[in-house]
């Protein structure tokens, strides 16, 4: 039998989702062509894969973090290419999106090295060697607590230790449901973060309006392990509209800072959410379809309204605001919105609070790093319950750059505004 001589390693073998890992192969013959391959089976039982073509150096070594991939699902020197360039294996169902539901279990990856430069047939050919890596959303010691109080549904993630901790209200967009993984990751970085459910794909309460979000914010502030005046809001897509509404108008919820990812100031939450989605539905003619029948929603809010009643009055915001956008966002007109937000804040005199990050060729779903770029995926349109494939936009490499960079910036932004510097606060004490 042919002998396995290659020594394949991944380090760390267990890491957080936003941590880098090093994949190395040693003990190969020199100048040996090999393929590094990564395989993941999702909770939905779909298979995702990525691969890169390498050539061992004079010492018989391949280091993914340092060497160039000659081809595959990524090319060039890409430390984490085996993760962010993952895509469904040939023959998979259409419109898949990789999302973790059980955050208390890791994602398991099978990383293998094959002889030669392969682009297919990974299942049929035996690899030379394989290792397993685990990717976790929850650091050890993070507590996951189901929230069902005062009419609010969510999941609270609390870091280990006595606290108190800065808090974050974490909201996703129109896809709805209770999506926990980003909050789990924020808690792994020391923030008590609550993932909020506010749209139920089956049945959003017709009366859910701004009061729901203010209550959610209050629940976070009231938690004994949260510093009540150090709570921020993080929203993606429609969640940004919620965040901006609270920041601009709420007398009860005073966020210390706000992050809006791939969002807009359109659709202020001045009416029940269900009504707003109904209104979006009435603008259906503004939705386009591309040649693959994917739905492009970005024109829905274009042109940006001039009527102040149709957008959040961002001039009223009193806390630092970070906007994160991809300029290839096909779902919301986020770059146009960001421009208008900047103009409004300029006129109002609070523009110094605004930081905007716009990533070239990134799409709508800017998520924590090293997770695959999703250009289009299955979606149930809120008001009509129609199943479509929604185009999110973006190109894999550029989107990966956006995810990695923006996540660092978001964490720094939250740390800067939610964690006091001891030298700056004269009354600060331990």
């Amino acid at each position, binding site marked *: 039998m042919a002998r396995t001589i290659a020594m394949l390693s991944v380090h760390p073998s267990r890491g957080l989702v936003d941590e880098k890992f090093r994949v190395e192969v040693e003990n*190969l013959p020199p100048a040996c062509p090999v393929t590094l391959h990564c395989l993941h089976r999702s909770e939905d039982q779909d298979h995702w894969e990525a691969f890169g073509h390498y050539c061992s150096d004079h010492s018989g070594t391949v280091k993914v973090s340092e060497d160039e991939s000659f081809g595959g699902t990524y090319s060039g020197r890409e430390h984490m290419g085996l993760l962010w360039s993952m895509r469904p294996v040939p023959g998979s169902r259409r419109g898949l999106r990789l999302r973790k539901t059980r955050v208390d279990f890791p994602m398991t990856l099978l990383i293998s090295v094959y002889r030669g430069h392969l682009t297919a047939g990974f299942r049929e050919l035996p690899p030379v060697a394989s290792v397993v890596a685990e990717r976790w959303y929850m650091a050890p010691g993070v507590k996951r607590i189901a929230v069902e109080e005062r009419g609010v549904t969510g999941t609270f993630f609390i870091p280990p230790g006595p606290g108190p901790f800065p808090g974050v209200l974490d909201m996703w967009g129109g896809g709805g449901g209770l999506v926990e993984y980003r909050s789990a990751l924020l808690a792994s970085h*020391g923030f008590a973060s609550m993932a909020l459910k506010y749209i139920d794909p089956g049945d959003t309460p017709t009366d859910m309006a701004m009061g729901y979000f203010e209550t959610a914010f209050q629940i976070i502030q009231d938690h004994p392990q949260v510093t009540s005046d150090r709570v921020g809001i993080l929203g993606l897509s429609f969640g940004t509209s919620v965040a901006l509404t609270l920041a601009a108008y709420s007398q009860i919820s005073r966020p210390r800072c706000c992050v809006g990812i791939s969002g807009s100031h359109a659709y202020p939450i001045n009416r029940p959410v269900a009504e707003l989605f109904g209104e979006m539905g009435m603008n259906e003619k503004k939705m386009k379809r591309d040649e693959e029948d994917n739905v492009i929603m970005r024109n829905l809010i274009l042109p940006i309204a001039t009527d102040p009643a149709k957008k959040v009055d961002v001039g009223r915001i009193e806390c630092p605001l970070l906007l994160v956008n991809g300029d290839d966002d096909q779902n919301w007109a986020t770059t146009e919105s960001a421009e208008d937000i900047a103009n409004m804040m300029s006129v109002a005199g609070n523009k110094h609070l605004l930081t905007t990050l716009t990533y070239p060729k990134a799409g709508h779903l800017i998520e924590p790093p090293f997770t695959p770029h999703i250009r289009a995926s299955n979606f149930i349109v809120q008001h009509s319950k129609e199943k479509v494939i929604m185009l999110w936009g973006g190109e894999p490499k550029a989107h990966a750059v956006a995810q990695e960079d923006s996540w660092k910036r978001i964490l720094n932004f939250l740390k800067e505004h939610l964690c006091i510097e001891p030298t700056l606060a004269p009354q600060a004490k331990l």
Partner: protein
Amino acid sequence: MMAGAVHPILSVCPSRALFTEKFRVLVENLPPGLSVTLHSLHCSEMKDYWEAFGHYVADNKGTVDVSQEASLGGTYTGKEPMGLLWSMIPVPGSKEHAVLFKVDVETPQEVLISVFQGHLSEGFRQKPPLASVVAERWSMAPGLKRIRVQEKEIEGILFIPPGPGPFPGVLDLWGYEVELTECRPAMLASQGFVAFVAKYVIPGRELKMDYFLRAFEFLQEHPLVISNRVGLIGLSQGAIVVLNMACRTEAISPRCCVSINGSHLLMEESSVTFWKKQFKMKEHTILRNEQNHVTMRGLTLPLPNEATINMENINCPLLLVVGEGDLNFPSAECAELMAKRMHTAGKEHLLTILSYPGAGHILHLPNSNLVRISRYRLPCFDQHEIMLWGGHPKPHAFAEEDSWDKILAFLKQHLYPDPQSDPDAAL
């Protein structure tokens, strides 16, 4: 919750790591110049609590980096990135002579790491910390298979790395204990070896040398093992056994052999009979101090040639690891005698000796705490005795870390075929 509280930021990176890997403990956002104590706490499977702590002062940026700065006091001093693990001691009030080791290798060891204000040496339970994080220490890399073996009269635990294989193999023998110690073979498998730890004591059976030789053959014949790439590693009694095996070149052909605090005593009978015989001959050499703690290192000295194995028969590279502070075995003396024998036989080129001042008998994996003393029963004793194993924490920790790196390098060098020079090796 109150407003205006400062948030010191404590992190341990990586938060999940293999037992042998290092981590970095970092505290940020402290007032500069603040005295703090870094503290670790672990509740073992035996429900004993273990702790370690170091005293630090935040620098002008308000940071304490345990990997870079010196501890000024506590259970360890100086620049010790892993001091919070290897210097662990039982918390006050613990039962006497508790020993810390991991039984279930499939679950991680959880360590609570905290930062306290001030330089504390006690009262950690009573005072709330400024911050805490949890580190998980794993014995098994992801994807490893752990298989209980009970076939052809061989009993033990087999650890198989993920992947198609085949892999080099290692027969791993621990010290004389009824229960198997699985951490080291699990860690070897995490490094790409098929590792098999064979049982020593099976009720109703006398396990003699041929049992271990058959265990070696079992490993060689495993479909996922490269049959001419199987090595041996043993500690204490296990070291005696592997050295005995290494010179049985008429029966087996180990590719290399690692002996940790062992000796080249000839063991023709079972371990039980062997130790009873030693004891009968030399009971007077066992020292007891005023607390009745036992030092056994004199038991096997002197070592006449006829009581030892034919070292001249050894054909494979041999690595001897010696703790010079060993109170249980005369490891250093035996290593010297073994070196002389190898030299006389013209085989000194096969031999490497690593000798560590201040290290004791139980040289375990890196980041393990020192087992200097414990309750123990050899078959030659009627009851449990309090055994002294020797060693001092800091040099022992260094020996564990340094020897592990060298043992791994040794095993990889001799068990993984080099594609550049090995005609058998093929991709």
